[in-house]
């Protein structure tokens, strides 16, 4: 009887010591690991944010300081002239069309940025791409007293002729930019090859979006629902985990931060697997028939050559449309990681820039064709700037996946685009 009362306080003591000791030990271990490994909590936060962004299929936010829960999940809808578009695109258009009905503010110089998600990121408000572009243009005496406004019209997975149709549609609604910069090239060769391998005409919009929106669920409703649920579930879990972890600043800890990242990455992996499964499912469905477009010779060389012709002809048409309206047009060939020789990738870029064999082939075999077609466009009088080599001498990490680059990359590109813009802009006063 006497032993038992003395035992209880000992257990209590041990428990108390454990409760105090473990956090202290964890903190000490955290600090030690932090000091030894040079742990970068900001990089972890950005990486978590990037993962969520990629899962939401949106245009990358170049500033990367948006709250995870504020990131928009992109709801796509069919569009009659571009195949598909996000709901955000429609509301952006309504806003632009309303502005177009009134005379613009005095001294405003409007630059429309067209293209896919890279152009979307480059053209967004917080991008250092347009930031640098604005800064450098303002150094030119012709831009003195002018307020530069960017009309960002880059949308995820867009490729020609989507940019051409979008610009046409906006011009017809009365939107009048002073200049149009079309930043593209990657989707044109990579997504077209992916289309062809999925049995859909290469010149049609990106297979995964078009097939998803245009095909009927029919008798396979339950199977499709299962797959879509498998996509949506990890997406939601990842957002929940990331926002909770970042709220409690877990990324600051060199031990908990990587664990958090691993948890979010796990959900991303499951999301990617389910997305892949859905794409394969769509590809195998027999009902796509006429929605796959006209027949085409399914040989890589011909597919890429047809894709580059569509890119080049659409750019030519955009040039003609702009010229007729006195709009300065510049086509910029975007840099991309898997274009052989365009950049020495860092270890991080190698790790994050993994891509499918189709994407790699599209970029490595398609880019030389794009460069050659771009040179021909120049000969025809189209303002073409080959920016595919702008990252060649940059040693830092720029890419955070196979094609998108960070704020620094946008800044480098913005400077190069500004120089080309000023060089090619016709001499004389700018139009009002």
């Amino acid at each position, binding site marked *: 009887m006497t032993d038992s009362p003395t035992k209880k306080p000992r257990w209590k003591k041990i428990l108390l010591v454990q409760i105090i000791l473990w956090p202290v030990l964890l903190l000490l271990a955290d600090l030690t690991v932090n000091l030894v490994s040079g742990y970068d909590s900001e990089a972890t936060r950005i990486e978590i944010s990037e993962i969520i962004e990629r899962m939401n299929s949106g245009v990358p936010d170049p500033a990367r300081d948006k709250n995870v829960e504020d990131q928009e999940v992109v709801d796509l809808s069919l569009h*009659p002239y571009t195949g598909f578009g996000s709901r955000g695109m429609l509301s952006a258009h309504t806003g632009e069309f309303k502005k177009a009905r009134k005379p613009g503010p005095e001294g405003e110089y409007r630059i429309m940025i067209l293209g896919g998600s890279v152009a979307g990121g480059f053209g967004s408000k917080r991008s250092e791409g347009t930031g640098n572009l604005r800064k450098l243009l303002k150094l030119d005496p012709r831009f003195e007293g002018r307020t530069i406004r960017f009309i960002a019209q880059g949308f995820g997975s867009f490729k020609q002729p989507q940019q051409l149709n979008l610009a*046409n549609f906006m011009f017809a609604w009365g939107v009048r930019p002073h200049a149009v910069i079309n930043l593209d090239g990657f989707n044109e060769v990579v997504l077209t090859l992916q289309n062809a391998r999925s049995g859909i005409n290469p010149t049609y919009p990106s297979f995964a979006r078009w097939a998803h929106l245009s095909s009927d669920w029919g008798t396979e409703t339950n199977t499709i629902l299962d797959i879509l649920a498998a996509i949506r579930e990890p997406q939601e879990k990842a957002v929940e985990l990331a926002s909770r972890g970042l709220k409690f600043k877990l990324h600051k800890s060199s031990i908990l931060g990587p664990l958090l990242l691993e948890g979010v990455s796990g959900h991303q992996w499951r999301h990617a697997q389910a997305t892949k499964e859905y794409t394969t499912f769509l590809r195998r469905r027999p009902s796509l028939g006429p929605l796959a477009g006209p027949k085409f010779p399914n040989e890589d060389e011909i597919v890429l050559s047809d894709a580059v012709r569509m890119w080049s002809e659409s750019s030519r048409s955009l040039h003609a449309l702009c010229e007729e309206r006195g709009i300065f047009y510049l086509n910029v060939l975007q840099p991309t990681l898997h274009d052989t020789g365009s950049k020495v990738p860092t270890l991080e870029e190698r790790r994050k820039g993994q891509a499918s064999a189709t994407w790699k082939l599209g970029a490595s075999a398609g880019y030389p064709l794009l460069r050659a077609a771009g040179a021909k466009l120049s000969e025809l009088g189209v303002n073409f700037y080959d920016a595919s080599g702008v990252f060649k001498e940059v040693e830092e990490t720029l890419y955070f996946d196979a094609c998108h680059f960070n704020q620094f990359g946008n800044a480098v590109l913005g400077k190069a685009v500004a120089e080309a813009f000023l060089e090619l802009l016709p001499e004389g006063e700018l139009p009002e």
Partner: protein
Amino acid sequence: MTESTRPRRSWMKIVLIQLVLIPVLFVIADVAIGLATGYDAENTRARFAAIVESMQSGVPDPGRVVATERIKKADLRLHPYTGFGPRGLNESHNNEFRLAKSEPLENEYRIMILGGSVAAGFGNRGSGGIVEVRRVLKEDPRFKDRVIRFLGQGFGSYKQPQQLFLASYLLGSGVVPHAIISLDGFNEVALSQQNGEAGMSPNYPAFSQWVHLTNKWGENGDSMLDALMKIRDARERGLAITGTAERYGLHHSSLIGPRVIGRLQHEKRQFSKAASEYIGLLRNADGFGPLAGPNFSKKHKRIAENAVRMWKESTRALNSICKDRGIFFMNVLQPTLHDEGSKVLTESEVVTSVALDSWVRGAKLGYPLLRRAGRELAEEGLAYFDASLAFKDVEATLYYDPCHFNQLGYQVLGIRIGERFLEALPEGELPK
């Protein structure tokens, strides 16, 4: 016995005489009426086909009278760059792409015809329209040794910017015509008005086709199915009547032929009523929010102005992309029945002119605006031909419904277009 048999024989005789006499009298009456009224059996046959074809929502075939079983049902499909297209669109494009890849015929001169169903009828093989255009062009020494080929790219319900995007897509795919004629105007104002009044952007494709293809049935599913069944029943009855009439040559009879037309017109009214019912259900369907396009003013006049601006800007854009490639472009404003003062209507045209209020309103409000916008385009140097009054002095029946015309109508229009084409075509040798 003998008394009772006599009357029986006399009755038999009377019946026998009647049996012989009635058909003979019928034939005599038929021939007499035919001679007195100048009855045209071939015209009646063409009207059978025209009415039944117009119930397939497809393109009228004015050039020849097709066998009933060959009348195509115009199943529609989504198209990424024009919103929708008929079932045969891919096949037609396959063919053009194949021809574009092969060596063209020596001295071939290719004219692409763009527009809606009127342009489709005009550009059909065997149509009086292109027969006359070819005849007029061949009188010019420059066309003497050229083989003229027409690329019929008019499709039912197409309106700008669909022609523009279709042409851009074809050019981007390697199809290179020497000239493009866009024959349009009616759909642009009539269907845009219908769109606007239904709550869909006037600049989006025809409401009844676009919403039909993109709308998920939802809670109105059963009513929609009922309406579609009624449409189908009327169409099938129309086909059966025409089939029987064809088989027994009923168009040869001046007494029966008009009755068949009466029956067909009754079925057409049933078809139109069911189609209106279906469109009404589509209009009330939930959830076509983002598919309705950007916001716009719902006032009738503003809808018409909006539609005409889209027509004008798209025409300008088409001209620019053609000019850049050395392609001769001509826009032709098509004549239409509800454009006040454009034709003195015959009795038959008055009967068949019934159309939706929004169509009539669209034509009345829109045509004066189209003419003014067309003059402005001509002042800018664009080859524009206002053919809206081409039927002003024609007394014969040309229209068989509110907007489509018969073979004679196409011939009249073909001659005028051919002449104007030669006037506007730049001097000097034709391109190879």
